[in-house]
């Protein structure tokens, strides 16, 4: 099958799922190991959540309700990083039960902050934190895509509410959700921020997908790339700039500083 045919099939399937006449699409929301901040953002939708609930049927959501129906689900949102074997098994079974599966937030989409921890270092730290006798449950902090096919990624640490609403709206109108075709820089300019890179402060804005409204830079913090790499990100060009503005250019300290930026959210992402 050509890519175009696959696209067409996905689209027709989606239209069928999301625009069913008689019943609303069945939605499940799951969380794995994480901070649950993205689900807090769902609650922060407030009145909008009520509006959304008129068009979708949340049949399984541990944080929000006791009601717990089994699959199949039309849409499943998964927040968090699968760290334990049980979580890995769970997402595999959710994949089988779900027609359209979405990663919610950077832990699910990129591995996020928990993925700063290298697999090879886990044993050492488990011993230090829990003691010699402790039997660890975690294997490695990786994004969902390390184990299952994920249909769409809603990035962010935490997610931006508007991106979640947009994704659901697009699904409800039978469209395959699309990624932002521009970088954080675009929104950063709109927000009127001075450019960090011109001011010789490191920033991953140019290679990071937009959609966040440059919220971190607005607040005075750098962009660490939690919205994931944008399509055709020119990492080499950014590395050249970062090399020039970190001190001393090309030196060990400079390399370490650049590595810190790339390891905050993107440590387990194939760059």
């Amino acid at each position, binding site marked *: 099958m050509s890519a175009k045919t696959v696209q067409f099939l996905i689209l027709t399937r989606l239209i069928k799922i999301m625009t069913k006449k008689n019943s609303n699409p069945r939605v499940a929301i799951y969380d794995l190991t994480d901070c649950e901040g993205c689900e807090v953002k769902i609650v922060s939708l407030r009145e909008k959540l009520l509006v959304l609930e008129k068009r979708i049927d949340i049949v399984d959501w541990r944080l929000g309700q006791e009601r717990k129906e089994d699959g199949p689900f039309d849409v499943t949102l998964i927040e968090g990083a699968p760290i334990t074997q049980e979580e890995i098994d769970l997402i595999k079974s959710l994949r089988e039960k779900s027609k359209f599966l979405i990663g919610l937030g950077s832990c699910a989409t990129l591995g996020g902050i928990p993925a*700063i921890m290298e697999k090879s270092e886990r044993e050492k730290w488990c011993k230090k934190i829990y003691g010699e006798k402790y039997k660890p449950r975690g294997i490695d902090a990786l994004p969902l895509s390390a184990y299952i096919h994920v249909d769409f990624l809603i990035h962010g640490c935490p997610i931006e509410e508007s991106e979640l609403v947009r994704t659901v709206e697009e699904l409800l109108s039978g469209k395959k959700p699309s990624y932002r075709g521009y970088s954080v820089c675009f929104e950063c300019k709109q927000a009127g921020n001075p450019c960090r890179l011109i001011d010789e402060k490191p920033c991953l804005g140019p290679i990071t997908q937009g959609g966040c409204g440059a*919220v971190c830079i607005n607040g005075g913090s750098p962009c660490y790339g939690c919205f994931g790499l944008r399509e055709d990100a020119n990492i080499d060009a950014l590395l050249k700039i970062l090399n020039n503005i970190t001190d001393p250019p090309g030196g060990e300290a400079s390399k370490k500083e650049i590595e810190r930026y790339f390891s905050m959210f993107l440590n387990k992402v194939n760059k």
Partner: protein
Amino acid sequence: MNNFIAKIEGHGNLNIDWDAGEVKLNIFEGERLFEGILVGRTAEEMAWITPRICGVCPTAHNLASLNAIENALGIKPSKTTVLLRDLMQCGQMIQSHVLHLFFLVLPDYIGIDRATELAPKNPAAFKDALSLKEVSDKIVQIVGGRIVHPTTTTIGGFHKVPTKSALKVLLKKLKETEDAARKTIQIFEGIEYPELKVDLKLAAQEGEYIIAVSSTDIEKKDKSLITDYKKNIEEEVREYSTAKFSKYKGEETLVGSLARLAVFGSSASKIDFTNPFHNNIAQAIETLYYHQKAIEIVEKLLEMKINAEAIKQSSNPSLKGIGSTEAPRGGLYHEVHLSQDNDIIYANIITPTVQNLTSIEKSAKALLGQTKNKSREEMEKLLTMLVRAYDPCISCSAH
């Protein structure tokens, strides 16, 4: 697996031994090993990384980390910075309490499942809940830059401070919602909670001290220095949990709203400190308290020049610091050691829920012993409600 207590933050379930009358709280969260993640990162990054321990109380972690780093670097933040941070804490308390009370607890008592079902059932209460959620989100948004995981805070001060016009808008919103905070107390005082009597220690931070009282005698206060937190809050590893369990000075101790009211004195007559279910009344009372405190702070800020530029570190800092704060669920402790280059070489974090876990088990055992004529199914529901009353944050506990 996949059978977790609903409507609590994180993944846990109960293992009930009906014959022995014992309850164990299994915690399944994967280990994220934050204390390891922090080592090798810079001092500045600590307050960026630790909020990700918990999305319900990220601001508390952010502030505790800043506090720890500033102590390590010998920085005393300006009065304006302290005021702005106190305002963030007010917002954090209301955000967390309102989420817990209306979205996780209330459904148990009024016969609904999901909180949004409150909208048709009691539109006025639902509107109040949303308006409190909105105004508390707004506080943290305006001062911290984002409602979850702050962006404006930094070591020694703020990258950016709120404008006066933003604060004026906030003040108006706060005044409009004060009544909703008052009504929240009425709702949660009006609930008939399950009966339970437990002899627990209740502890809260005050200045440089941890103050502890007994649930049966809140007048007698025991004091210990926060700098001795590691000695007094002893952590223990249990094979059924990825979170540690701790006791304060060897005793099961409850921390959080109920403990703060016990320690700081509450005039509310309806509260019974021996009944952990009453933590929900305490959270409602605190919602109004922090709401009023937020109004006071904003009024103060509007009268002064708001400059919270970051203060530089002292010339010969100790490079070791402890940061503490009262998070929504109780006393939070962050400790950090830095290298000469301000890289983190050691980190230790004790969260409120780690302290509460042992007291949850003790209270659950008491509930099993004291409740008569209930089926196992009813008893399980009651125990789940008890866990929920504590508002455990399991993500925090298994950081």
